[in-house]
């Protein structure tokens, strides 16, 4: 049950979807960050956004808890 709840958190969405999405977007756009693999950059970006969303309770300027 706890695992199921975790799957629906912003952090899980960031790791499961947004990270690879950002990484593949960077690759498609030909953007690189030195020796850093794009997947690492994508995951870092996604985790930052997911962490903020987790803390605020919503992805954008509003809170889904309202």
């Amino acid at each position, binding site marked *: 049950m706890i695992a*199921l709840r975790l*799957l*629906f958190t912003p952090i*899980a*969405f960031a790791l*499961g*979807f947004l*990270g*690879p*999405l950002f*990484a*593949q*977007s960077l690759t*498609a756009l030909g953007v690189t960050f030195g020796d850093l693999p794009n997947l690492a950059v994508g995951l870092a970006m996604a985790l930052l956004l997911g962490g903020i969303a987790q803390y605020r309770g*919503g*992805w*954008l*300027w*509003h809170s*889904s808890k*309202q």
Partner: protein
Amino acid sequence: MAQLEAVADYAAMSAAELDLVEREISAPFLREFPLGIVLWGLSNAVIWLALWPLVFMDILPLWLAFPIATLNVALSYLPSHDAQHNIIARRGQRLRWLNELVGHVSVIPLATSFRVLRATHMEHHRHTNDPALDPDYDTHAENTLDFFRKHIGNGFGGRYTTTLARIGRNDLVLEGVLFNLGYLLILFALAWSGHALEAAFLWWLPQQIAVLWLRYYLSWVPHHPGTAQGRYRDTRAFKSLLGNLFSGGMQYHIVHHLYPTIPLMRTPAAYRALRPILEQRGCDLGGL
């Protein structure tokens, strides 16, 4: 002129007479077989499903598939809505299977359970604009800007789980969770297998855009300001800047709440026929 005379006649009628005339006018529109919505629902889902192999095999570029997918997801709800009201066929009728097929298949692009939508939508009809009981009450907003501020990024049915629990349909709570879980896991699997862009532009982003459009035109606009309850007060007609087509046929939503078994595609004609009576009833017709 004829319409003016009709309005004058209606003004002289008692409430019971008005009810009778209203029912007589609406009767021919009820439960007409909605062939258009059947074809719409099934073909729309097939087109959306076909986008995936077309994009994966590089037959269709993703930039072109994205707007088509967005249109598909946006168009996926309304055929299911007719099926929710058993308009295609009622229980026990020969084509009942088709009603259920359209209901289930048409909402595949929305990644939402038809049975959950049906159960919660019936509660919306029972309790329209009731702050405690209307499952769609959370779409209420002061104005368009307020609506978008509240709803960009929010998915379907924030109150559906509590509604289903209240009516004792815990089986549908589970079904809703499984649908959401399935959707998430498919997105994750696609993303981690190198197809995140396809998942984003064929499903996730189209769904975000479509749900926002659906919530705006199917829920917020036709019920705004959403403060009144009662048969002739809880919905309204309105003139959409985008026309009836791009507002999902919702300009005539008042007809749907009065007679939920009139097919979506017949609501404009039914509205025109019922308009003098609705005017007499003091309904908000929004200049339509």
